């Protein structure tokens, strides 16, 4: 799977009608310089050999150099990945927790005002393009009201925090700087809100639907006949069984979240992989593009593995046979 997509991207990147060496050398470069660049990038070798070099490089964690940043791509990725992780993990956490929470409440109180609000709002998030939501939030809350920074995460120098991981929150903690920590959290709020708005409706609606199914089951009536508290039934009985499909969906959502993250990073100039990829793309910088494909694909595969690991926890039959 991973192999298939890496190869596919490699093929695509080499099928260009345009000359990559020329693009890399720049429009002003003369033919001699273009040849120079071609040789240095190994683009004069036969295609298959290039492919092998590429694969070998991956195994050695050598992903080539970025023309833009002039650093090794591996180093670039290590530098920018944490900030993206900070964004993605925070958003995912909020979506999972509140998606499930609202879904449970919605199923438990189907005729309440809350329920009506949920029906109305849970569909809207999907229709709003992530970049638009981000821009609107940015326009109103950052530019107009000034409650949040318009761009970036933590201004490291301003707060005298050292760049260790690249995650504003973590680095502030490491430096023991509480004001910096506060600042990094504030900077996280708008981008995370944007991502949450776009995805939470899916989780909420699915949780509500599966909970409704569970609450109609016979064993719920039996539990009530034993005098069990309604909330206990909701959480310990119904939710436990409802989680199965919800977890699967959350796994899928993680993938969609990654796509949305790129857009959010561009809108908020968040210094993560998304912004890096965006810049690499604009300047036809190949190695980063290939590398990012690799990273994204590996993340997808990892996520799927993780999800399948959780199933035995939820289903006792699987647990006892494995």
């Amino acid at each position, binding site marked *: 799977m991973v192999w298939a997509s890496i190869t596919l991207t490699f093929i695509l990147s080499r099928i260009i009608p345009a000359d990559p060496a020329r693009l890399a050398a720049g429009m002003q470069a003369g033919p001699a310089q273009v040849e120079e660049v071609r040789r240095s990038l190994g683009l004069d070798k036969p295609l298959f050999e290039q492919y092998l070099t590429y694969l070998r490089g991956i195994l050695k964690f050598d992903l080539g150099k970025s023309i833009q940043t002039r650093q090794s791509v591996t180093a670039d990725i290590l530098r920018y990945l944490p900030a993206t992780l900070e964004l993605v993990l925070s958003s995912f956490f909020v979506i999972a927790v509140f998606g499930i929470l609202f879904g449970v409440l919605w199923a438990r109180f189907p005729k309440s005002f809350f329920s009506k609000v949920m029906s109305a709002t849970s569909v809207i998030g999907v229709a709003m393009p992530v970049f638009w939501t981000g821009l609107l939030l940015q326009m109103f809350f950052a530019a107009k009201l000034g409650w949040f920074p318009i761009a970036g995460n933590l201004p490291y120098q301003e707060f005298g925090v050292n760049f260790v991981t690249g995650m504003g929150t973590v680095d502030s903690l490491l430096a023991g700087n509480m004001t910096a920590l506060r600042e990094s959290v504030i900077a996280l709020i708008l981008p995370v809100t944007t991502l949450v708005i776009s995805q939470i409706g899916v989780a909420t609606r699915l949780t509500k639907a599966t909970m409704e199914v569970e609450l109609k*089951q*016979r*064993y719920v*009536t*039996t*539990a*009530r*006949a*034993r*005098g*069990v*508290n*309604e909330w*206990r039934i909701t959480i*310990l*009985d119904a939710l*436990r*069984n409802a989680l199965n499909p919800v977890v699967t969906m959350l796994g899928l959502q993680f993938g969609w979240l990654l796509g949305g993250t790129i857009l959010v990073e561009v809108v908020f100039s968040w210094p993560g992989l998304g912004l890096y990829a965006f810049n690499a793309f604009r300047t036809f910088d190949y190695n980063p593009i290939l590398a990012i494909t690799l990273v994204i694909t590996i993340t997808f595969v990892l996520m799927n593995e993780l999800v399948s690991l959780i199933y035995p926890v*939820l*289903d*006792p*039959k699987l647990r*006892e046979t494995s």
Partner: protein
Amino acid sequence: MNSPLLIVNELNVTYGDNLHAAVSNVSFEVARAASMAIVGESGSGKSTLALSLIRLLGPNAKLSADTIVFDGTNIMSATKSQLRKIRRDQIGTVFQDPFSSWNPSRTVGTQLLDAFPKSSHESVRETLIDYMEVVGIDRAASRLDDYPYRFSGGLLQRAMIAGALLGNPSLLIADEPTSALDVTVQAELLNLLDDLQHERGLALLLISHNIAVVSKISEKTMVMYAGELVEESSTIDLLTHPKHPYTVNLLSSTPTMSQKRKIPLFAISNKGPSDQGCVYSSKCSIAIAQCKIEKPPLIILGSTRVACHRSNEVDTLMEHNYDPIT
């Protein structure tokens, strides 16, 4: 101590917009340590009646009653927590399908202990193990930690009975407890219920569509048709001298092992219940004009209550093509 355990007056249940009530104006009493049965075909309202006693009906159901008083407590006006205590301690329930009545993702023990506060779990667990042995489950202690899929249907029902006994109830409601089980297991389970009822002085309310089942262990039987109570009598009287045409037909359509039968089994017509007058009049073979216009009230004939205009003629007019089930 001589007052009845359960008094029900004019209990009504309607679902949604349905004009025809699921349970219509039913009144009865259950004495302490009495063994009673409610029989009727599917749709007669017997299960609905049983569930409504502990207010366990779904959100679509509208329950109304003049009185439902259990052991001095007014069920209709009880608070949620009072109701929960009653369900846990005073009224035990056993349901029909053992396989869907348990949450497959949790152990049998945790599910049975759910209603009790954490602090008392240890002592309740001990009691539960005792009861499980009483109902015939081997290695009860380790069984408690098993998941439902490891139990057979019969054992699951036994576990459910053990759980129902936990709070020391004075009433046990068993809604078709054996319908989903094999015949051999059925007999064992019924005997178990019978023994428990006698040994512990429990009142047992057994609900079934099968008159043969209840005849073995219930002293008194109520017959329901289309949501109404049509006859109530001691079981022996019911089987030998039924006073309602429906009861007669029900008995005639029940196969028995006796060899004396020469007449084929009776088939009750499948016409729906009538809207006007007696609810059984559309199928009744001895129905007269009055039956189709005027609803027969429940009258008392000796120790029987019956709702039929021609109840005293039933004996002579209807063919006794059944054998008393012994």
